Structures are given as C-alpha cells and as structure tokens.
C-alpha cells in the first residue's frame, strides 16, 4: 500500500493539535473541579502516566518499523485474532471521532448558535472530516501547519491579555496537598492525553522512522505544558469557583476579555478558529479509521471505507441526546475508562508481551 509520508515536524504538530484541540475546551474544568490549585500537579501526574503508556507504545512500534499495529497484530496473533484487533482499533477511532464530533457540535450550539439544530454542525463537520480524510494525511498535515501556529498564538495572547485581571493568590500552587483529590484530578488529563495512541497507526507515515520517539515525545510534552499553562491561567483569572462551575472556562475567559475598553466578546471568533483544529483532529481520526479498516481487510485503498464513515459518523454523533449524557456516559465512562485504556495500554501491552515471548522462542 502506498502510504503518504509526513515529516517528523508535521508529526509533532499533528500530535499537538490532536492532544490539545478538545482538551483545552473541556479538560481544565475537569481537573480544577477535583484538584483545585493543585491542577498543575494533577496534570504533571497525568502526563507522567501518559508518558509511561507512550513509552510502551513506542517500544511496540519500534519492534516493527514501517508497520502499523494492525499489520503486526496479524503477524503476531495470526490473521483471525489480528483482524479482530484491527477491527477493534477501527471501531475505537470511529467511536472517538463520534464523541469528539458530538462534543464540538454541542459546544457550538451552546455558545454560538443556540437556536440552530445540532445536526447541521454534525453534518458539516463530518462532511469536512470525511472530505479531508479522502484527500489524505498529507493535506491534513499541511493544513495543520497553517492552522496550529496562529491558533496557539491567539490562545496564548488571549491568556496573556487576561492575566493582569487575575489575582495571584488564586492561582499560586499550594503546599497543603489533598492527595485523593489530586489523583482524581490526574485521571482526566491522563485519559485525554492517551488519545496519543494514534501514533500506533500513524507511525509508518513518518518519512524518518527513527525520529518517531522524539517527535511523539516533543508533541506530548508541549501539549501537556500548554495545558498546564492554560489551566493555571484559568485559575489565576477566574478563580477556583468560576473555573470549575462553568463547563467551558476557556469560553468564559475569552468572553469576558476586554480590549481598549471597546472590543469585547470575541469568543465566537476564537472558538470557531479553535474548532478548526478540532475539525483537523476529526479528519485525522477518520483517516486513521479508514486506514485501519483497509489494512485489516487488506484492501489497497482506504477510500472505500470512508463511505460508511460518512453515513455512520453523523448517526453516531446524533445518538447522545444532551451534554450530560455525552460527558458522563460516552466520554467519562466509555471513552476514558474503557476504550482509551484498552487501545492505549491493554492491547499494545498484550502485543508487546507476545512479541517478546515469540522473540525469545
């Protein structure tokens, strides 16, 4: 199969986009809710946990250079079990795309266009995701090259503009720790960041396979640093109460920002720009879903699998009826506690063990 190639810098940037896009919107509130001022510590712990998992994934990927997890699962476990794992991964990508799609659509509906029905956003975004997946990973990576820097720049400058309104004592780290709360707060970032498992599928697309490790780690560490910065900035500016009572503190911050005493309420602009990053994330996941499915069934081209995605993604994303359902059931329970641990830790760990055993035999 002719796999499109991206450079290791593009790989890093894609990692950043994917691990930042949705978490910046929903994660700070989850962390602050539990860990309060110790959010940075919770994030640190979460990052460390993810780092351990990434090391596992990287060790697996290094054993089979130039191959994706679906391909070496078939080598390690035989065609049938291997195909099962491939299907699991394809479904995981599709599921995560659907969840992300629904969350994004709900955020748009709540904060930008409250009277427009949800399906318009879902349809628009899934059309976009499928279209760009059709074009391939190279254009997606290029679009990401164009969009990531301005988005980070805008987000960073918004935070810097807001910092003078903050109160120092609201955001300073504290010495009196509440460990249970911190551990509780460390779980969401660890779960969110473990979406980085996509490198198992994307690794063969890297044009210099030896740079996989550094590219992934750079991306992950930058994301976690940026998330820490964002979370602490929310604490500084909004205080614990407001940072944890609003569902999307990032939007509150941009909404209340005032510039020259006359320009304010840019949240619609900033949010839509940020949503473009999310659209790219959706595209990458849709592409990877199709690629996984194609490799599972040994098809030459992944494009045939995009049609089912085009039909199922909107349906999947329309099933959760409200924000509570998507956040509590679909995201916190199924995604964080079932899907992501399985595809990020359990299955790669299993494969790695089998690879080691087979190697010894």
């Amino acid at each position: 199969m002719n796999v499109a190639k991206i450079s290791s810098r593009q790989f890093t940037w894609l990692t950043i986009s994917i691990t930042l896009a949705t978490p910046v919107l929903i994660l700070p509130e989850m962390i602050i809710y539990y860990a309060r001022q110790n959010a940075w510590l919770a994030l640190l712990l979460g990052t460390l946990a993810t780092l351990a998992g990434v090391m596992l994934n990287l060790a697996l990927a290094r054993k089979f250079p130039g191959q994706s997890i679906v391909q070496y699962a078939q080598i390690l476990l035989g065609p049938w079990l291997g195909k099962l794992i491939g299907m699991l991964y394809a479904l995981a990508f599709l599921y995560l795309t659907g969840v992300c799609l629904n969350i994004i659509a709900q955020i748009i509906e709540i904060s930008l266009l409250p009277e427009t029905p949800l399906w318009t956003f879902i349809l628009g975004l899934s059309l976009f995701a499928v279209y760009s997946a059709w074009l391939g990973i190279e254009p997606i990576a290029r679009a990401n090259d164009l969009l990531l820097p301005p988005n980070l720049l805008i987000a960073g400058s918004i935070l810097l503009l807001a910092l003078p309104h903050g109160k120092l004592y609201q955001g300073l780290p504290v010495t009196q720790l509440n460990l249970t709360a911190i551990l509780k707060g460390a779980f969401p970032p660890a779960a969110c960041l473990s979406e980085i498992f996509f490198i198992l599928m994307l690794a063969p697309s890297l044009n210099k396979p030896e740079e996989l490790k550094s590219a992934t780690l750079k991306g992950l560490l930058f994301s976690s640093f940026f998330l820490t910065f964002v979370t602490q900035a929310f604490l500084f500016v909004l205080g614990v109460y407001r940072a944890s009572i609003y569902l999307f503190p990032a939007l509150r911050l941009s909404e209340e920002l005032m510039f020259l005493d006359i320009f304010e309420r840019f949240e619609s602009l900033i949010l839509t720009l940020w949503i473009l990053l999310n659209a790219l994330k959706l595209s990458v996941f849709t592409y990877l879903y199709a690629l996984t499915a194609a490799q599972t069934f040994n098809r030459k081209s992944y494009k045939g699998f995009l049609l089912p995605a085009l039909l199922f993604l909107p349906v999947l994303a329309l099933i959760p009826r409200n924000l509570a359902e998507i956040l509590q059931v679909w995201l916190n329970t199924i995604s964080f506690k079932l899907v992501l641990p399985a595809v990020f830790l359990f299955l790669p760990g299993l494969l790695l063990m089998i690879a080691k055993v087979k190697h010894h035999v």
Partner: protein
Amino acid sequence: MFKRIFSLMLIPLLLNLSGCWNRIEPENYAWLTWVGLDSAAGGKIKVTMVLTPPLSPVPTGAAPPEKLLTISSATGDMIFDAVREINAHVPKRLFWPYLHAVIIGEDLARAGVEQHLDVLFRNIRVRKNAWVFITRGSVEPIFKVDPQIETNPGVLIESLVKSEQQFLGKSRVLRLKDFQTELASPGRDPVVSALGIWDTDKKQILPPGAEVPPKSELALDGSAVFRTDKLVGWLSPEESQFYLLAKGEMKTGLIPIPHPDNPQNLAGIEIVGNSAKFKAKLASGEPQAQIKIKIKGKLGDQWLNAPALKTEEPNEDPEFYRKLGEGLEKKIKAGVEELLAKSQTDFDADILGVGDYIMNRYPNDWDIVADNWREYYKKTVFDVEVKVDITSPNIMHSRPPVIEDPE
C-alpha cells in the same frame, strides 16, 4: 459512488440557508442597556429595563429621538419569568450583549440576590462585564431620571464608572463577573457600588423615597456591604475610600489631612498609585491577616486657614514630605482599622476576603474553619501597615518663599 453521496449530503447543508435559525437582523433587536431588579408585592420580582433605539446614520431629515431611554417593566415569579413578560409588550428580541448596568433595589438585596441573578450568570448572551449597582430604597426613581449631560444610557454608565475610578475613588464599582465570584466564595462578602440620584437644584443626593425632581442626574453614593448574598449595610464614600485603599484598588482619589506645619490648615493628598498586599493565615486556631498598603501621592492642594510656614531656601524640605506621608499613613491606618472593626462587629461580613485567601492558600486549614467561618472572622486579628510615598507638590513649592517687605 462516494462523490455522489458526498454531494447529496452537501445539499441539506446548503439548504439550511432556508432555515437560518439563528439569523436575526440587527434592527429586530431591542437594545438592553440597564436592567433594574426589585422585589414587588406578593413575593414577586419586578424587572425594569432601559431600551435604546437604533441610530440612523443617514441624514433623513428627521430629528434624532428626543429621549434615548425607553422604559419597560414587568413582574414575575423569577427574573426570567418577568423578562419574558416584557416581551408581551415589547415585540422585539431583547439583546443582552450590550447590557451596561444591573441595578438592584434595596429590598431585593436585603432578601438575598444570588438565586435571582442565576439567569444572568447562566445565559451566554448576557454581558458579564456589566456593572452592578445597588440603590438605597427602590430602583424605581433611577428609571425616572432624565439625564441631561450624557443622554446615551450605555455611555452614561460607562462614563460614570470611569470618572469614579479616575477622579473619585469613593465607591467600589464591580462588574457582574466579579460580583459572581465574590458572591460564590464562602470566605468573602462583596462590597458593591451604590447608585443614587443627584438633585441638581438642591445640590445633594436625593434621600430614598423622595420624589424625583425634573432636573436630576445619576450619581454614585458610597458602597453597599453584603453578607453572603444579603445586603447588610452601607459604606459612606469616605469608608469606601478606605476599603478601596485596603484592597489596593484605588486608582486616584483625594484625601484631606491636617497640614503638618499647622494642624489648623488642611493638606489634600492626591493619590496616584495604590497597591495592597494581603496575607492571611490560621495561627493557633485564630485567623491572622496582614494588610500592607502602599500609596503614592502628590500634594494636591494646601488649604491654608491659618498662616503657613514660609521658607528662605529654594529647596524642598524632605522632612515636610515625610510628615505629610506620616499624616496620611495615620489617617488611613485609623480609617482602615475602624472599617475592619465595623465589618467584624456591625456587618459581620468578611469584606476583604480573609476566608477566601485562607481557602485558596491553605485548603486544609480552611476545611477546619469553613463551617464556623463567621465566628472565626470575628476573632480575626488584623495587622494594617500603611506606607505612603509623597512624590511631589506638583508644580509649585510646598512652602511659599519669604518676601521681604520693602519698608
């Protein structure tokens, strides 16, 4: 196949043009600038609004609208309920993003505001940067004022606040978002600006309940102190000054002190910079708070009732500056301490946020005192330190030269 289905699905996306659910042309809005909230008979809430008409940029020959204030009001069980009632007679969509002032009546404030304001905090459309004001007595008179100096109600509120911040420093103006934060924290009680009416003819603030005279303007009149979300008392403009100084929020302001050369005279110190460092902790079961206030000032004017000292040297006297500063320090320290004592005894309101500080910095200590914070607050020991730095007497010498009588 793919392309066909793809384009088929593109069609509904473009078709939702016909829906345009959220498309609202700007002329269909009623532009909300002030919202007044007050309690009404029967436990109901009365909402009063100021709506402004759009301005036409094209010279149409018609005179601009005489009055930029259109007032509507309605009552309901909740605020949102009353707001919807207003739509019964205002056939336009209420536009909240340009809200400038939320004005709360005394009755409602005394009964507690948090549950009522939830609609404002929760709704995405409401501007969280609006200013909050409390009125002495009912809000009704505020809406009867016909401002003459600045007719645009939105601009009026903004300039009122700005002039307060730039020149006076005698009232604590607060945005809705900050009000929300302070209401929500169990360890802090908000202090909010009080809005009154200036009687232009009698040259005084209108007492509550009086009839609004035809010539009147809005004016800020000290601050209101809350305990949790209930109004418990008022701060006079001078007390508000001390409060702002203790918070480090005063940008400018003028404080008169006895002249150091001769206590019969007065010296007005113009404050040009103010910052305050606040620290609190729990020491052996008792809260201790330390406030370090730093002030930068200039000699604004000397009110010389009795003859003043004169100087024979052209140089300024550092000792005089130091004494000026000391005088101000003494006055502010006394004022702040008195204010804090009052907050502990009269209001029983943690106006500086001692509890909030402890909660944020020492969360485990806070867990001990949280349930009984009111009791602990009464026992709080305050340590107020004031440091004044007088930089200059503006452009004139502080002491006039001795002029020899020619005779």
